């Protein structure tokens, strides 16, 4: 069933400063639907932590941002209905949401995705899609988190579209903390070393 073609998209508006009591309501009575820790036991892949700060054009922390991640499981599969398609049908839900804290800091726990199919049959290096919402952002900012040391980064069809001197803003350095693998991803929304954002 198809209706007459609508006049156009519903425009985006800012999430504003007061979203937490429904979108990230851990401190409120509202039940929490989405978590920052999405590394469920049934998800294949290396457990990793992705953490960092969200900074504005003055380098000051943004303390009222919401972040969402979307990634494949360790075998490069996204959740979805069409099990026969390559890259589909993971048990892993793949979606995480969190707010930054009063220092502008965030952390996700997930699995490191495997390579997923890209344009023209080329494989994409492991990556996680990231959406940023905040007061002062009239529409979502979209970017990707890539992982230091991945052999596929050099030939990744999306990273290759980014000027070489800006690619490092998308590749998270890896450290270890105890037994945990930690990738650091700092979001600089504006100015020097500004994070690359994509039109998707």
């Amino acid at each position, binding site marked *: 069933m198809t209706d007459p073609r609508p006049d156009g998209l*519903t425009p985006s508006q800012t999430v504003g400063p007061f979203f937490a009591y429904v979108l990230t309501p851990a401190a*409120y009575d509202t039940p929490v639907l989405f978590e920052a820790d999405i590394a469920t036991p049934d998800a294949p892949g290396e457990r990793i932590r992705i953490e960092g700060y969200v900074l*504005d054009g003055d380098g000051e922390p943004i303390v009222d941002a919401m972040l969402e991640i979307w990634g494949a499981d360790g075998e490069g599969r996204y959740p979805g209905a069409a099990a026969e398609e390559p890259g589909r049908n993971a048990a892993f839900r793949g979606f995480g949401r969190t707010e930054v804290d009063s220092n502008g800091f965030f952390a996700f726990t997930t699995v490191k995705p495997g390579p997923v199919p*890209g344009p023209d049959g080329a494989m994409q290096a492991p990556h996680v899609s990231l959406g940023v919402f905040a007061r*002062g952002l009239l529409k979502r900012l979209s970017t990707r988190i890539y992982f230091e040391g991945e052999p596929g980064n050099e030939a990744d069809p999306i990273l290759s579209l980014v000027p070489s001197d800006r690619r490092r803003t998308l590749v998270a350095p890896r450290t270890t903390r105890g037994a945990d693998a930690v990738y650091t991803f700092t979001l600089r929304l504006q100015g020097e070393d*500004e994070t690359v954002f994509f039109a998707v």
Partner: protein
Amino acid sequence: MAVRYDDASLAAHPPSLAPDYASTRRRAPSQPLIIIPHTLSELTGPVYGHETVRPGDDDLTRQHAGEPLGERIIVTGRVLDEDGRPVPHTLVEVWQANAAGRYIHVRDQHPAPLDPNFSGAGRVVTDAEGRYRFTTVKPGAYPWRNHPNAWRPAHIHFSLFGPSFLTRLVTQMYFPGDPLFAYDPIFNSIPDPRARDRLVSRFDMDTTAPEWALGYVFDIVLRGRDATPTEEPHDD
């Protein structure tokens, strides 16, 4: 067949930098966005439907022991894509100020009363035809510090997923005839007046429940796949 979402329609959105909205000045990226092809990472997306909502999540007037103060309203509409296809079984999260213009968020310092019977958080899932409906009270306008004597028009925040990562939308619904529209830099950040008008709900007597609540209709249009050709002809 390559699936591609239309890009041209994105012109309906505000630019990142809208200087009259002061918070954009130090948060809007200064570098141009880099256009990327739509890969599996963009064409897939989280799927959240009926399992995520509880009975009563769609009635913001019945979440506490008593009834909230304010004008009771019903908000309903359809979620469609650009091609007119319904977006079924998709989660819609809504939040708003109370009738006095105060949010329960800990950082809201507006000296208007909190209402112990109103939180202002709701969740609904669209049905097979993309329809949603919830009951609430009409939110009040409230002051903010963007510029001297700045007030936001009454609005309800909406957050929607749709079928993929790139159909995600966060927006605000407004009420018809609000005298604050002309003064609001967030509303006016949308360049095209016709696109702006799509954020204004429509009063609807057929939705209005006798002796109970006024009705407003707000249809939402998410991005559509630029399918070639469509399976069914359009009516127009």
